[in-house]
């Protein structure tokens, strides 16, 4: 158990509404990541963070923003949700010592449906 909690776990919303997903970790790890998973695409990196207020874009960042005001929380926001953002969203952390291995630990996922 990597001490990662994602919320909400399931959400249905309508096109054009804002949505925020929360990733909470209990172990004060520096590196946190948001991925989305869609059939046939594996996991694709949206944004990541390497510390409080330090964030950067991944390969599919358009339409998403993130914030990290505290070490333990990494928020993913869809300012105006679209149907193409229907997906399962995974938060991940990298533990100290795993920088050379690349290993990530994943949360349980948040399933978002945009109607």
């Amino acid at each position, binding site marked *: 158990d990597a001490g990662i909690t994602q919320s909400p776990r399931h959400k249905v919303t309508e096109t054009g509404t804002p949505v925020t997903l929360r990733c909470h970790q209990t172990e004060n790890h520096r*590196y946190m990541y948001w*991925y989305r998973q869609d059939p*046939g*695409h*594996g*996991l*694709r*990196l949206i944004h*990541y963070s390497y510390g409080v207020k330090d964030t950067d874009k*991944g*390969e599919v960042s358009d339409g998403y923003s993130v914030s990290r005001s505290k070490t333990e929380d990494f928020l993913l926001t869809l300012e105006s949700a679209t149907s193409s953002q229907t997906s399962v969203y*995974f938060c991940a952390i990298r533990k100290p010592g795993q*920088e*050379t*291995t*690349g*290993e*990530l*630990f*994943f*949360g*349980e*996922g948040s399933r978002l449906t945009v109607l």
Partner: protein
Amino acid sequence: EDKVVQSPLSLVVHEGDTVTLNCSYEVTNFRSLLWYKQEKKAPTFLFMLTSSGIEKKSGRLSSILDKKELFSILNITATQTGDSAIYLCAYHNAGNMLTFGGGTRLMVKP
């Protein structure tokens, strides 16, 4: 452009069969290749490979990397229904990112 491609996309076998899953990659600044297993929820780590020709093994699962031909395979012997999952490979590059392939969905029938 860096990429990783997994094959087959899906596979159905019967218990006791042996399966081989493939992962080919084209990346710059390669550091390692990782395999994950994903059942109904979070992906869980299986192996990390950095050197060619050195097999990593865990029970009935094993994996090997070929850095010359740029591929890795994951073998599962004597499959069980509990092996049914999506298997993901990912490369780790010097930018400290993990980039994933599309996954192979394995179904093991009794």
